[in-house]
C-alpha cells in the first residue's frame, strides 16, 4: 500500500481508476439483479421471497468486509503512520453503515413473510445491529474532537477494538442457533448448501457491491484529501 502513501499520487490514481470501477459496479449490479429477479426460478419452499437474498446476503457480506478493511486501514494509520490510513477508515464508515442498514432492513423484509416476524433478538440479528451502532459510533467519534487528527486517531483505536464483533457475527448462528439460518455458502466443511443456479447471482451482486464500495471510497477519500488542502490554503490566506 506504499504506492498510495502520497495523497497527490492517490488522487491521480483514483481519477484513473474511478470510471472503470463505477462502470463495473453498475454492470455487475444490473446483471445480478436481472438474474436474481428474472432468471432464477422461485424457491420451492420460500417462493419469490428468496429473491430478497440477492440484495440481503451481499449487503451483509459487505457490512463485514467494509469493517475489516476499515480496521486494516485504521491499523496502518496507527502502526505505520500511513498518511491515508485514518482518512480511508473515516471514509469507509458511512459506506459500511449503509450496507449494514440494508442488511438489517432487507432481512426484516424477508423475515416477516418467512419467519412471521420483523425482528427477533436472535444472535445474528443482534450482533449485526451492534455492528451498525459501531459504525455510527465511529462516525460520531471522529467529529467529537476539535482537532480532526485526534478524532481520527480515537476512532481508529475504537475501530480496532470493535474487530471483535466480526467473529461474533460469523459464528453467532452456531453459538446461539435460534431463528437465523446457519451459513450455507462459506461453510467450514466446504459443502455449500445452495444450488449453483441460485448462487451465481449472489456472487455477481457481491462483486458489484465491492466495486461500488471501491468507487464511493475513492470519491470520499479524494474529497478528504482536497478538503485538507483547502484548509491549509485557507490558513495561508488568513495569514496573508
Amino acid at each position: 500500500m506504499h504506492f498510495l502513501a502520497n495523497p497527490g499520487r492517490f488522487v491521480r490514481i483514483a481519477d484513473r481508476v474511478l470510471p472503470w470501477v463505477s462502470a463495473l459496479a453498475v454492470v455487475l449490479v444490473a446483471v445480478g439483479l436481472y438474474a436474481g429477479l428474472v432468471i432464477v426460478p422461485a424457491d420451492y419452499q420460500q417462493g419469490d421471497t428468496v429473491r430478497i437474498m440477492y440484495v440481503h446476503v451481499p449487503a451483509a457480506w459487505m457490512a463485514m468486509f467494509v469493517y475489516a478493511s476499515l480496521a486494516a486501514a485504521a491499523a496502518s494509520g496507527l502502526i505505520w503512520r500511513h498518511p491515508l490510513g485514518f482518512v480511508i477508515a473515516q471514509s469507509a464508515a458511512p459506506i459500511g453503515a449503509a450496507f449494514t442498514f440494508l442488511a438489517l432492513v432487507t432481512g426484516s423484509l424477508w423475515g416477516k413473510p418467512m419467519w412471521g416476524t420483523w425482528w427477533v433478538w436472535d444472535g445474528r440479528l443482534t450482533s449485526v445491529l451492534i455492528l451498525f451502532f459501531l459504525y455510527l459510533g465511529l462516525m460520531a467519534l471522529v467529529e467529537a474532537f476539535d482537532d480532526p487528527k485526534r478524532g481520527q486517531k480515537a476512532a481508529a483505536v475504537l475501530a480496532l477494538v470493535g474487530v471483535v464483533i466480526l467473529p461474533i457475527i460469523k459464528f453467532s448462528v452456531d453459538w446461539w442457533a435460534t431463528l437465523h439460518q446457519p451459513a450455507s455458502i462459506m461453510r467450514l466443511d466446504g459443502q455449500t448448501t445452495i444450488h449453483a443456479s441460485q448462487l451465481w447471482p449472489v456472487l455477481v451482486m457481491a462483486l458489484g457491491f465491492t466495486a461500488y464500495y471501491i468507487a464511493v471510497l475513492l470519491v470520499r477519500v479524494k474529497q478528504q484529501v482536497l478538503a485538507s488542502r483547502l484548509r491549509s490554503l485557507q490558513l495561508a490566506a488568513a495569514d496573508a
Partner: protein
Amino acid sequence: MQSFDAFLAMGGYAAYVWPAILLTLAVLLWLAWSSVARLRRTQKSLKALEALGVERRPRRRKREG
C-alpha cells in the same frame, strides 16, 4: 416470466420483495450521489482560492534546542 403483471406480483410477496430491492438501490444511489456532491463542493472552493493566487505556506521545520 409469464407476464409483466406476474413479475410485479412476485408470487404474492410483492410487498416484501420490491421494497427490499428498491430501498437497496435508493440507499446506494443516495450515498454515491451525496459523496460526489460533497467532492464537487470542495473542488469548487479549492478552485476559487487557487484563482486568488493563494499558495500553501512552505512547511517550517521544527527545531528545538
